[in-house]
């Protein structure tokens, strides 16, 4: 089972959010990238777009499937990781680092997210 880094928050749809003041960086978890397999395409919003918690904000495609990205927070997109256009594999190789998706200016306090320990316990119930 993948080790979820401490200090960031996790959603049940396997996205993570790292809070930095009134901003958050969002990505997909190691569990998500492992389940998806080799990621071949990442569709992201544009800077200025509004994200709503629990709502779709893009998609990831892998050799197995296409999945929606579900935002863990409310906010406005400040920056997107354009490096993923040419190198979507960064989501596989470094999901918590170079594979980040978007940076968001938060418009509310994130709710209903899990810490690393709770997320790992959640993943254990999702696996077989």
């Amino acid at each position: 089972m993948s080790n979820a880094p401490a200090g960031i928050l996790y959603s049940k749809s396997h996205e993570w959010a790292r809070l930095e003041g009134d901003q958050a960086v969002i990505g997909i978890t190691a569990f998500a990238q492992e389940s998806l397999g080799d990621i071949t395409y990442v569709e992201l919003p544009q800077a200025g777009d509004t994200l709503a918690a629990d709502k779709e904000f893009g998609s990831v495609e892998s050799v197995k499937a296409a999945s929606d990205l579900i935002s863990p927070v409310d906010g406005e997109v400040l920056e997107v990781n354009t490096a993923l256009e040419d190198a979507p594999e960064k989501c596989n190789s470094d999901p918590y680092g170079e594979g980040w998706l978007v940076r968001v200016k938060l418009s509310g306090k994130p709710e209903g997210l899990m810490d690393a320990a709770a997320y790992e316990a959640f993943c254990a119930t999702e696996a077989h």
Partner: protein
Amino acid sequence: MKTIFAKSVPGRCAWEIESDAPGAADMLPAGLLRKAPPRLPECSELDVVRHFTGLSRLNYSVDANFYPLGSCTMKYNPKFTEYVAALPGFSRLHPMLAQLSRGAACTQGALQCLHETERWLCELTGMKAFTFQPMAGANGEFTGVKLIAAYHKARGRTRKKMLIPDAAHGTNPASAALAGFETVNIESRDGMVDPEALMAALAAHGEDVAGLMMTCPNTLGLMEVHLPRIVEELRKVDALLYYDGANMNAIMGKMRVGDVGFDVVHLNVHKTLGTPHGGGGPGAGPVGVGERLLPFLPAPRVAMREDGSYRLEYNLPQSIGYMGPFYGSFGVVVKALAYMLRLGGEGLTRASEYAALNANYLKKRLEDVLDVPFARRFCAHEFVASAPEGMRALDIAKALLDRGFHAPTIYFPLIVKECLMAEPTETESKETLDAYVDALREIVAQGKADPQSLTDAPVSLPVRRMDETAAARQMVLTEDMA
């Protein structure tokens, strides 16, 4: 294998058609004529025969081997339907003829075929009428959701939401979106629509819900136990129910979707009624409707006069219009009719019974080989299983190819981990199913003893393991044919 272009030798040819008919040069303005002849391959007749026979031998088909591709119903289609559809009275009929002023008199047999097929399908599904215009299943889905949109529009309201359970077919959300609906995903619980999720969606969207698209049995191969409740709740807001007929092969003679409360259904005749699968040829996706959607069907419709003769009815003011040319793929409809007449009601029922029997036999026998969820429930015509812990569905699928079997559907539905979805169909024998079980047992044992050997599969086919990741990341969509 070389391409036919690579086998070309300048000046070589088979035979030339000699004709006095005018050529392009006699009919087109000089400015539009090409300057040089097209670069077509130059080959002898034998070169051509060997090339295409060679290609056909590389092809995998149900005529050659077992093809348990889940959700696709790759059953064997008896050849006699080809004979019937090729009868000159059908195959040489011009589609315009029935539309000419006295054309109906010359096409009574063909119109009768359409009319009788419609009656058969109505009997099979409990629907009131069918259109044959949609050219395939997904086109049928699109037609179905357009009919739902027309229903609400005729009542002076715009409804934007289409509810789709997550165990439905993947084409459902696409068809709904194409028709202008926003889809609302309904999560499942224990392999069934979660009634709480349904109620929450209805509470959130209320009278903005146009309908619900149901795959039943669902993509897990399970019959939906909450069906009566789902029908009841949607009726309360006058939302319509769509039945995805792609899994019809499970329920013929067992459940009539019109009787259960569905308003519209499409049938994949290539899955259920013995017509050919894809291959670039014409398909057909007839759509049936109940009373409420009857006025909106595409035009024209075949009607019977009082004297028992047939005519085309165009006076359908609320029709959604044409969804395909003429009356759909007429030849395919003839094949479906021939299949139904040959099997009869009893035979069609037995086909579904054997489809379910074969799937349950396979599921039971694989319980100690794969990780089979919902093991205590009977499945319908197909079932899902996960690769054993630590193994990948993809590797198992590729290893099956080496043993002469087509792979089951993998990684679908998305709600099952490392999913292998098998649909044996009614046309396979116990011996074939047993051989498939033996092959899977051997593969799993091999994967546990020597994991690397599975990632190498296939080793015995014309091509080895494709690099799917590279193919998706660096797409090459054209090829130099020289």
